[in-house]
């Protein structure tokens, strides 16, 4: 079958039109849609880990919220044992009362030094407690009670000397550190 000149022209024009249509189809129709899909897919791939992380973070904090109260209560209870006000105002009377309750009448407390503690919100005070007239057994009981009842107090030095003035009693000096609110 031999094509006529007119038909060849029509075929040529048709091919040109087809190419133009294909170009338009891929460039202006399919291209943007596929690009949008690709962008959305990339976005999904990026946002899913973020959502997973966010959910993990929320669940981690929720788990921590259930564990934390005991630890926080411990710290708060300790803080509650520290009276308000300047330690120089309340610590010496507290020690006097404590030793009096253990049968040791004479007690003199002096502050030696003050320094910030490693724990934020606390400072460490060093005191010397002079007990000029103590019997060894009440002193031992008092030290035992002091160590048990005062978790923020540490006895760093104990000195017990026999006195010649009164044979019944000894002279004791305690050096203690305490943590107080700064």
């Amino acid at each position, binding site marked *: *079958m031999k094509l006529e000149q007119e*038909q060849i022209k*029509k*075929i040529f024009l*048709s091919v040109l039109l087809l190419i133009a*249509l294909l170009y338009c*189809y891929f460039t202006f129709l*399919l291209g943007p*849609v596929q690009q*949008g*899909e690709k962008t*959305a*897919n990339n976005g*999904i791939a990026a*946002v899913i880990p*973020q*959502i997973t*992380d*966010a*959910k993990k*973070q*929320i669940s981690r*904090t*929720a788990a*921590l*919220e259930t*564990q*934390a109260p005991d*630890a*926080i209560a*411990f*710290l708060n209870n*300790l803080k509650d044992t520290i009276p308000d006000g300047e330690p120089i105002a309340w610590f010496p009377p507290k020690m006097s009362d404590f030793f009096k309750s253990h049968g040791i009448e004479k007690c003199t407390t002096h502050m030696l030094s003050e320094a910030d503690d490693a*724990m934020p919100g606390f400072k460490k005070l060093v005191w010397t407690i002079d007990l000029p007239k103590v019997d*060894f*057994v009440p*002193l*031992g*009981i008092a*030290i*035992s*009670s002091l*160590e*048990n009842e005062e*978790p*923020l107090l*540490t*006895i*760093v*030095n*104990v*000195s*017990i*000397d*026999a*006195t010649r003035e009164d*044979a*019944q*009693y000894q002279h004791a000096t305690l050096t203690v550190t305490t*943590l107080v609110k700064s």
Partner: protein
Amino acid sequence: MPLHVNLYHEIQHQELARRRDPLRLGMIGLAVIAAGFVAYYCVVLERSHLVGMQYEQLQDEFSRLDPKAKAAKERQDELNDEITASQTMMQNVDGRFYWAPVLDQILKSVPRNVQLTHVGAMSGPSGATNTLSISGISSAIEPRKEAEALRTALAARLATKFKGVTATFKNLEDSEEFVMLDGRRLATATFTIEFQLQPKDPGDAPAAAPARKPKLVADE
């Protein structure tokens, strides 16, 4: 055989030519291809729409979760700080060295013919070696042996409750003084013993209070 003349020959030929027209066939082919492209476009468009909707849903979910996650992170930091502070405080409390059990052991170890004149105790930093120093007078026929017996007895007692216990004489001298004990005149020796000891565990609990009184020289 009769002669057969096809008077429709021309019409049939034209019809055949029309049906085989390349332009017509090409147009039909193009139409089919175009329909395929349109169908494919519709499929891609629908898929893209679904993906876009999913993305929007996820973005909405993330925009709801993100502030909560940030608040949770801040809260977690606060809680961690408080828990760390609490644990540090607990370690400080548990890491203290308790002197009452040491005094109790001294009470239990000092025999009646030894009199203490000084007891000194000093804590090192948490977990470090602590030092105990006792000075006194021992009275016996061989007072040095009595002082040595006290050193070993107290070291043995302390070793049951503490680790790394060492006991050394810093001073042991015969004295020219004599004492009367149970009606006997006994020689005396002055001594100073230094003990080094460490707690076995950070959480060593203090022992019960001393039950009996040691003899100090001032009691005489």
